[in-house]
């Protein structure tokens, strides 16, 4: 069996976001694997370690820079990579079309991805890929059990925990609490350099969503900050909660 993991390269979550010429400025920003996808990579590697699958392929659609994200995943333990070259302005639809086309060529048994990307926060791409490929999907998993051509997943759901089963092949998206991604070892980093990565051009697809403009959120003004005996602080805070916030007890 083969698992394919989709990874997106995103800004470091520490990054300070600024606008330049009406666009999100990317100069000097550290790029990482989307933290949710990193969990999916770890999940894929663990499936191989448990001998559930025998190959872990990583796939990224993006600019040449996304090669770094692929190499990081290879250093963690994935076997080979595919970079689909696509303009970073692709929307969720165009992204899913490009990824699905590459996945189709690979014919994996399990397709993993993070359930959302930390940059655009869209949570659409894995589900769209499943629809394009006509496959089942399960989102936001925190556990997986693979047996008898099926995946049984525990998922974070609205107001509870869900257990659901799908027949493979299927698209499965990860929640961050699934696992703790490993740091690539020195040996892993060295090996990654030699692992094969193929490149391809993205399947053509037009965006369905148009970005009109970017803006910064209204800056939050710092308010009162008091330093005093804890009891005094507590009394003042209680007054503020009652009089300004109007909380009811």
């Amino acid at each position, binding site marked *: 069996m083969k698992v394919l993991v989709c990874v997106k390269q995103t800004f470091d979550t520490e990054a300070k976001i600024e606008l330049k010429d009406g666009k999100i400025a990317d100069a000097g920003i550290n790029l990482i694997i989307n933290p949710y996808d990193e969990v999916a990579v770890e999940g894929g590697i663990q499936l191989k370690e448990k001998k559930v699958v025998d190959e872990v392929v990583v796939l990224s659609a993006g600019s040449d820079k996304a090669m770094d994200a692929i190499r990081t995943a290879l250093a963690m333990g994935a076997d080979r990579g595919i970079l689909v070259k696509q303009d970073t302005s692709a929307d969720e639809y165009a992204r899913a079309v490009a990824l699905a086309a590459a996945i189709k060529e690979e014919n994996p048994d399990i397709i993993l991805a993070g359930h959302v990307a930390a940059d655009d*926060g869209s949570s659409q791409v894995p589900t769209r890929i499943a629809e394009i490929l006509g496959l089942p999907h399960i989102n936001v998993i925190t556990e997986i059990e693979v047996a008898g051509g099926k995946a049984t997943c525990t998922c974070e759901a609205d107001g509870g925990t869900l257990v659901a089963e*799908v027949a493979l092949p299927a698209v499965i998206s990860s929640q961050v609490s699934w696992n703790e991604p490993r740091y690539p070892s020195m040996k892993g980093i060295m090996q990654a350099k030699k692992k094969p990565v193929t490149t391809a051009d993205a399947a053509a697809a037009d965006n369905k969503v148009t970005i009109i403009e970017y803006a910064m959120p209204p800056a939050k003004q710092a308010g009162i900050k008091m330093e005093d005996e804890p009891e005094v602080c507590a009394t003042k805070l209680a007054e503020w909660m009652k009089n300004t916030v109007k909380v009811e007890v």
Partner: protein
Amino acid sequence: MAGTWVIVEQRDGNIRKVTYEMLSEAKKLGDEVSAVVFGKSVEGLASEFAKYGADKVYAVEGDLFAEYNTGAYVAQLAAMIAEYSPNAVLFAHTFNGRDFASRLAQKLEAGLATDAIAVELSAGKGVFTRAIYAGKALAKVEVATNPVMATIRAGVMEVVESAGAGAVVKPAVAATATDVYQNIKSFVPTVSARPDLTEAETVISGGRGCKGPDGIKLVEDLADLLGAAVGGSRASIDSGWLGHELQVGQTGKVVCPNLYIAAGISGAIQHLAGMSSSKFIAAINTDPEAPIFNVSDFGVVADLFKVIPTLVTELKK
């Protein structure tokens, strides 16, 4: 225009508040508003939606729809869209809502704006404001595919009562058991007497400064006094003091309650991403330099172990 549809979020007849927020917002935008509710037997809920302006209520009933299931729900809604041609369809930005909307959008080869915090609708077009980079920036996007689709963040739009006719429509059932591809084995609700984190009016969060379950207990006591939800920073989730579903921040939940109290939380950029759009923010932290004070309306530089017990006593007065 051919109307705005609001997809109801409910489980066992308990309707999520975001449903009313979406109905109120849709009503404000002027077009005919319909609530679309799925479930085993849900017609009886119609009057609930009429209170917030629903002119029509599409009640999609049957065993197949008893619980949310992507395959059946998508097949059914796609058939209804083909039959009734709504101008816009709004979903809640919950786990189910985004799953539903994404699969449907792809089936219809349409665009979708997820996690929208502002909505403008006109014939054949929607303009949505979305928080990106976990709220560090905003993007205004246009969706002009048919129908216009978006998922809406909970807690942002105001709930306004306004009477609608609430006329019940029973659409033909188009989905069949063969559309189902996820076999739901079990759903275990989170047992908590507290409100849902993303829907609560007040959220009290504890961080590493709580130092352990005893400190978290103080946070919980305060929350229970106020009928508030409890949340936490990643530090307190990673320490195992709180469940992962309670993490607030960039890789957790985004909350925008009326009041957010951060106790023993430094205010890392990833945490701020999840709570800085709250209406009022209070912080309790021993470090006067903690970044949480940059976003708080009322900050106290003091030990939470001493502040919270007195605060509870004072609030009870």
